[in-house]
């Protein structure tokens, strides 16, 4: 059991969500008899959405939840602002149990603390971009002047200058999603929930928005839960990734963990097609100098070898290694600590550390 505090902004403890009239019975049965999803559906007419999920998201990190459709990732994220009530388990936000809030406190928390971005934007077509953006402030009865100022500020943040007085239908999909992002940022919330925000966009625009969001995220340091069905996106965006399947979390880890040490065959299959160049670092594939020298004889001329840092990725190492025959020497604190041969480099590209 984790309690959230300064470091853990969002914590979910053993969250279960079962849809159906007999959810509680079904939960008991699953815990006792370990029923499968299909059996629960057949015996209780209930659908398991989220199955015993515990996560803890650190302050300022981008935490990706990756899974295919129907894996329960969107359901899980809706528990955090209690759009969906859990069948069992608790959600803590800054140490406060969301399940214990009364209706008004919950609305205050949703408006002030949590911003949400939706896959289908869900903008209000009858309101201008500015009015859409300031919607959460309006719901808290903030006056029109302050709203306009706040909207102006975030419009700049998401580079939509000059579009404030247009209607959403006059904007392209990518720009509409900027409005969605701006709306989530308008109340300056601590937490961003992003439910497949870029999935509906075409690849080029998606890439651009990803980069912009990464840049923004570095500056704003908002704790972000980022839902995606695209592992590439998860790896680009996430400081950590949770992989979900059938409502359960299969693996949580950094992108490098996921790629180099997949927890099971499901994750391994996913990872198979992923480029490792930016995900595997020197410290993972290097061998100690002593071991290298035992096998290959003494390093003749350490000064002639290209040098790299332990935290450099494969891409950088390949850049050093091409055009000459010496192995790459990995340095730490000014001292050589390991060797990466070309064989190791090639194996690394294949994903075998």
């Amino acid at each position, binding site marked *: 059991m984790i309690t959230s505090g300064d470091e853990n902004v969002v914590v979910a403890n053993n969250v279960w969500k079962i849809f159906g009239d007999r959810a509680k019975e079904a939960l008991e049965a699953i815990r006792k008899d370990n029923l499968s999803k299909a059996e629960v559906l057949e015996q209780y007419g209930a659908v398991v959405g989220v199955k015993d999920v515990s996560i803890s998201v650190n302050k300022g990190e981008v935490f990706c939840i990756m899974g295919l459709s129907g894996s329960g990732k969107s359901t899980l994220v809706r528990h955090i602002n209690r759009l969906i009530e859990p069948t069992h388990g608790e959600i803590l936000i800054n140490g406060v149990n969301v399940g214990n809030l009364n209706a008004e406190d919950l609305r205050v928390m949703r*408006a002030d603390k949590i911003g*949400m971005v939706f896959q289908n934007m869900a903008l209000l077509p009858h309101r201008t971009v500015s009015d859409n953006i300031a919607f959460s402030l309006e*719901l808290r009865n903030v006056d029109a002047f302050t709203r306009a100022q706040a909207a102006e500020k975030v419009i700049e943040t998401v580079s939509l200058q000059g579009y404030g007085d247009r209607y959403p239908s006059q904007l392209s999909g990518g720009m509409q999603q900027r409005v969605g992002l701006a709306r989530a940022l308008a109340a300056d919330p601590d937490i961003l929930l992003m439910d497949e925000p870029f999935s509906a966009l075409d690849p080029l625009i998606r890439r651009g928005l990803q980069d912009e969001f990464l840049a923004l995220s570095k500056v704003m340091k908002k704790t972000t839960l980022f839902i995606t069905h695209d592992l590439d996106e998860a790896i680009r965006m996430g400081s950590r990734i949770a992989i979900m399947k059938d409502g359960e979390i299969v693996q949580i880890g950094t992108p490098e963990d996921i790629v180099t040490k997949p927890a099971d065959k499901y994750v391994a299959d996913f990872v198979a097609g992923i480029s490792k160049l930016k995900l595997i670092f020197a410290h993972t594939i290097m061998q100690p100098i002593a071991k290298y020298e035992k096998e290959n004889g003494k390093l003749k001329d350490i000064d002639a070898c290209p040098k790299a840092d332990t935290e450099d990725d494969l891409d950088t190492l390949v850049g050093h290694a091409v055009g000459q025959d010496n192995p790459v020497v990995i340095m730490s604190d000014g001292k050589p600590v390991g060797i990466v041969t070309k064989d190791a480099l090639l194996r690394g590209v294949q994903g075998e550390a």
Partner: protein
Amino acid sequence: METEKDLLKPFKEFAGPNGEYYGNTFLKIQKDTLGKFHINIAAAIGSFIWAALRGNWLLFWIAFLIDLVALINLSLMAKYSQAAIDNAEKDFLVVRYEGWSADHLLGAILVFILGRLLVGWLADRFYYNQYNKWRVNRSVNSGSKSSRLVLVAVIAALIAPLMLYRSSQFAPEARTCIKQDRAIEKGETVPFKDRFDCAIIGEFPTLVWLDRPDEITYPRDENGNRYVERKPAREGLPPLDLNKYAAQAIDDGIGYLTAFYGFFFDGITAFLRTMLNMITAVFVGTPWIIAMGAILAISYVLAGTRITIFVGASLAYLALFGFWQTAMDTLSLVAASSIICVVFGLPLGVWVGKSTRGQSIVTPILDIMQTIPSFVYLLPAVAFFSIGKPPGILATVIFAMPPMVRLTALGLRHVPENTKEAALAFGANPRQLLTKVELPLALPSIMAGVNQVVMMSLSMVVVAALIGAGGMGFIVTEALANTRTGAGVLAGIGIALLAMMVDRVVQKANPTAEK
């Protein structure tokens, strides 16, 4: 040749006897080479017997009914030619009965010949359909089985004799049967045939006779307060049937309500009259030149040049044919009813759209309101509110409100779930969700509801002229009563122009309609 045989194999398996013929016919149907006038001779001759043998019950019923109708016509012919002989002394009856007799003979021949041709034409086509169903489900009837004829015999025995008996007899009148009932009560003996005729071939027999209820009146005492006075029904009057008894009970109930709760209905009447007077003051009280200018200006601003030209022409028609005041009268009624419809219909629609219970309570009521013929509304309106404009408005409101409720509810239900979810995620409370998200997004549907309300009000206001609501409808009802066709047609055109005018302007005024 071998392949040809193979092609026919499934057909033959299905058809059983005479498989070669059906196989070739089905093959023609599949190749689309079956003649347009292809007729199965066996089916045309065998008719319902053929259909029963082949187990095609749809065709069986068609064929059976055709033959039955032909037979009934024959029996009617016999009945009327006998009647012509029986009434030989009355010339006009002889002419009438002989004419009917000839008609029925012709009918019998036509139905029989054309019917048989139809059955023959349908037979193979229906049978091919049955074959296709049989391919999917082998329990569908196939082959030819004489056991099916047993069922035919049972059906024919149950239906045909009574049908033919009915057509060969003159049905007793309702009065004769009532007399017969009395006679039986007194213990007189009535021949079985008469009793059978009354029970089976006339009107559905009256099963219940109820004693007359007390006569109820609501006179005033010396202080002017009403009280209920019951007098037993006069001796010697016959008992009542269910219809008359229930009608009397309803009348008594309405009488009771108006006698003791009259202030309630008077209050509503007064409210409606005040409201109507205010509106009429605007429409009728304004000099025609200003009113016309205002209407043209409004339609120009809301709906543009083209519609304004149409509105101008319509107004000119109304004015030139002397309908101006009456038309304005009608418009006041329409405005009053539409306002009431919107004021009550919108909240009701929100309730129906947002709550399942609201939906299950209100929807059946709306269904009833829309199914009842509009004339029927006039009766309770008159019963409770007497005649004049206020009951006319009430009847109109009942008639015109359902679309407002329905379309508001529909609009609310069609607001995308994810838009509502987004509003909730940003902290909207239920009231904000309704006013800032749901109602604005439902606006096109709501405006369509308003348009419907206005149009239906206009049509009902015309009908309401029957209970003294006045306006254009009055001219039409009066023309109808006095068969003054010309006046009625002119007023009818006026009403149509008024309706089109209002419809075009309201539709164009709807800000969301253009998109």
